[in-house]
């Protein structure tokens, strides 16, 4: 009971932590989806060299653990003259790491698209940006929505790593309260519930997009 009271007294810390987690994930997801979509173009349509180089970059980020990348950005970049505050270092890490994953997600959704639609689009005179804007990207977006949702959930959970580079997010708040008041259960249980709530929200969102996609197909 004592723990619950202390958590209530320190609620501002948790509210800030929650807001930091949400803002990091939202901004990073928006940028990573954009970069991923742009990066997917050479992965699918690029020449042999561009494709191979792109794969190398994507594979690199997929085999580096997130925490190591966060360390490189936060502790490593200052030696080459780029010193970022923890929040921004966390954001940059999230963007770098997830752009690679998003590019890979879009690439595989793209390769699985039925070719006829693109051919038909071309036959109707779509070319260049118009073809991407109206024919390819909408289909890729709908087809990859569930996997993007999964990646968002992974991003939410990856933000917890950022407490190690002192970003005051949810787990940082829980750990801070435990370290100062020696009541571990309530703060960590609250942290778990907050992450759970965020993940459930993303799952609901994915479900709605899926329903919209199904409605579109049967329209």
């Amino acid at each position, binding site marked *: 009971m004592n723990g619950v009271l202390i958590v209530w007294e320190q609620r501002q810390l948790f509210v800030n932590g929650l807001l930091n987690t949400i803002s990091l994930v939202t901004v990073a997801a928006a940028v990573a989806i954009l970069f991923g979509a742009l990066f997917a173009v050479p992965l699918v349509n690029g020449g042999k060299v561009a494709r191979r180089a792109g794969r190398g970059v994507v594979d690199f980020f997929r085999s*580096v*653990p997130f*925490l190591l990348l966060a360390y490189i950005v936060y502790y490593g970049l200052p030696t080459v003259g780029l010193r970022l505050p923890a929040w921004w270092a966390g954001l940059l890490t999230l963007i770098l790491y997830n752009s690679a994953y998003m590019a890979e997600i879009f690439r595989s959704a793209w390769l699985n698209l039925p070719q006829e639609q693109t051919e038909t689009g071309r036959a109707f005179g779509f070319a260049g940006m118009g073809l991407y804007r109206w024919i390819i990207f909408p289909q890729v977006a709908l087809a990859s929505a569930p996997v993007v949702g999964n990646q968002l959930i992974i991003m939410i959970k990856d933000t917890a790593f950022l407490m190690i580079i002192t970003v005051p997010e949810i787990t940082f708040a829980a750990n801070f309260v435990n370290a100062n008041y020696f009541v*571990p259960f309530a703060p960590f249980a609250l942290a778990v519930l907050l992450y*759970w709530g965020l993940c459930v929200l993303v799952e609901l969102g994915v479900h709605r997009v899926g329903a919209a996609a199904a409605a579109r197909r049967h329209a």
Partner: protein
Amino acid sequence: MSLAALLTIVTGAAVTALLSLSGIVIGVPLGLLLALVRWARLSFLNAFVTVFVSLVRSTPIVTLVLFVFFVLPTLGLEVDPVPAAVATLAVNTSAFNCEIWRGALMDFPREQRDAARAFGMTRAMTFWRIVFPQVWRRSLPALVNEMTTLLKATPAVAVIGIVEVTRAASRIGAATYDPLPPFAVATVLYTLVVLIFVQGQRRVERHMAIKYGYQT
């Protein structure tokens, strides 16, 4: 970077690999057990496992390991960092493995089970002789995927003071004021370990394709 520093990072990498491996060795069968509870629809346990899996799957490992490390002692169970880390990794991966096993179990053709029962096999015998040999082959690629994910998430246990590869690298970086070389070494080591895993998966898949004559 000195030879001693290099050795520290290599030791850290070994710690990472061993912790992940211990988590996997416990977590894969534990996941199967959880999946079987859900598959058998044991009413009370089923609901419990559903909530457990959902909670664990949405909890970051950093948070879970802090929870295990700090909450267990308040229940009178003192844990050292290493057992706490292994328990956390095992619990985390078991929740994801549960979903993988469950997916394969749900897709298992009903006719085969009915046929086994018609031949007078008990439920346990049906499981071990008929269901399991097919289900594990079906689940293996996804299980190995989850293993690489766990391997990449293992640095989370650094937060309770375990000197695994990333913490070893950051310590050396802090001591030498030159963090990029140790991080580069750690990255190379990590990539190697992940590559070994992926290669292992490909070999097992090829071996299974030859032995069983079909791709699972």
